[in-house]
């Protein structure tokens, strides 16, 4: 095994071009587990810790450009106003020690359907900025990023540089099912973001299909129902029948498996419950009832 330690982004791209099998390592919270358990013996480890810009973020007019290695702790502490959905999801990642090291770039690179940041990224409509030495920068819409179980749209010579995430224009929520608040791989998870300026709702489902997915039919139904009823303008409470149908369609968007963490049936059911709850939380917050949830102890 060789340990590559590029000092700059350009050097990292050159190293990845020369050694396409190199496994990038930043927080190490996934890669080191595989190495410790001898599940993986990469020819090259490509350490990204020295590249300062990967640990930085920029808050722009309309979006946040979040460096791939920005640890979850920093997202929780610094970006909960701009990215409330992602901040809440970040707070459910493992433990303080893991949140101090792991970041969104690793979640995307690993592309596990259970990664906690995926539902929030799907719900907010993020773009993943990847780059190769040969072909330069690509901005991949998050909807096209996940390709299969632990497979993503990256080419062998590409590295994830940052994630471009639209700043929240409305309430966002994240919900996750697990056996305790900390150190839990999601049984299933659900993210929801209201986009009042576009009058749409976007969603993301985690750990209930081979890849993270949006509940597209549920979104389409809800968007039409909200438009038809004038809900965005009159700020009325969402009727139980709309919430119920939204939940049913969200359950239908799942394609889960039975495994040690939960059964397929349970996952389908729980995703429906979380869809209804996150819709109610965000909608009540949109209507001006700020008594929704706080980040304190959120999971």
């Amino acid at each position, binding site marked *: 095994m060789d340990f590559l*330690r590029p000092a700059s982004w350009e050097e990292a791209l050159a190293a990845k071009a020369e050694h396409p099998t190199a496994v990038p390592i930043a927080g*190490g919270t996934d890669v*080191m587990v595989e190495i410790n358990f001898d599940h993986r013996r990469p020819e090259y*480890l490509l350490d990204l*810790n020295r590249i300062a810009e990967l640990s930085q973020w920029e808050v722009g007019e309309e979006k946040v450009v979040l460096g791939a290695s920005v640890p979850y702790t920093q997202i929780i502490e610094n970006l909960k106003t701009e990215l409330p959905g992602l901040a809440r999801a970040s707070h459910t990642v493992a433990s303080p*020690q893991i949140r*101090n090291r792991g970041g969104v770039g690793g979640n995307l690179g690993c592309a596990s359907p259970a990664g906690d940041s995926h539902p929030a990224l799907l719900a907010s409509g993020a773009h993943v900025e990847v780059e190769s030495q040969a072909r330069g920068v690509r901005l991949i819409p998050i909807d096209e990023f996940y390709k299969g179980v632990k497979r993503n749209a990256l080419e062998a010579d590409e590295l994830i540089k940052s994630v471009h995430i639209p700043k929240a224009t409305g309430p966002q929520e994240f919900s996750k099912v697990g056996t305790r608040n900390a*150190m839990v791989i999601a049984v299933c998870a659900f993210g929801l973001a209201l986009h009042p300026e576009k009058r749409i709702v976007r969603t993301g489902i985690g750990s209930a299909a081979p890849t993270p997915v949006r509940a597209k039919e549920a979104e389409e139904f809800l968007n039409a129902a909200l438009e038809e009823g004038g809900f965005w303008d009159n700020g009325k409470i969402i009727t139980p029948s709309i919430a119920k149908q939204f939940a049913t369609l969200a359950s239908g968007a799942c394609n889960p498996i039975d495994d040690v963490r939960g059964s397929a049936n349970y996952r389908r059911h729980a995703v429906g419950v979380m869809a209804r709850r996150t819709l109610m939380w965000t909608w009540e917050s949109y209507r001006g009832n700020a008594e929704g949830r706080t980040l*304190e102890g959120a999971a």
Partner: protein
Amino acid sequence: MRVNFTVNGRKQTADDVWEGESLLYVLRERMGLPGSKNACEQGECGSCTVRLDGVPVCSCLVAAGQAEGREVVTVEGLADYAAHRDDAHPGGACGSGSCGTSLDAAQRWQAKGTDGQTGEGTELSPIQKAFIDAGAVQCGFCTPGLLVAADELLERNSSPSDADIREALSGNLCRCTGYEKILDAVRLAAARQEEAV
């Protein structure tokens, strides 16, 4: 490969490090510092918790090469680290390299002193004293990781709520105590810290 890093305030070099090796392995097997414990090797249990540039991390998930040029504090150096935070270098670590715990002293570190039960006569950090006084140590395997995590909590939050303590220690598993005595110990250390101010 060779790894140069700072351990407990002193510059150290580890040689013949395998590229896939963890920081934990280097600390235990190459530096002779077995205080940080090796249990789950997947970041679940927190018993290998150390400070990396001041931040608590699971050393089993840091590749040794990633520690190059960085500062590590292990439980063996915790007493000195806490003492210097409070006295010699308020608000920051020592930059001169004259402080810290030598590798030799760290390797020989034992909580013996004049009384093996209470640790009396041994240099201990306030959190270590509180763990002993509150009876928060049973088999002791999780203790080093908990001490490092709890010490960092009290460094940034002098009067943590129970929820703060629970969250700060949520990445450290203990299978003996049921956690109550550990929570007591952190509350005790926080109360003593408040009194001292």
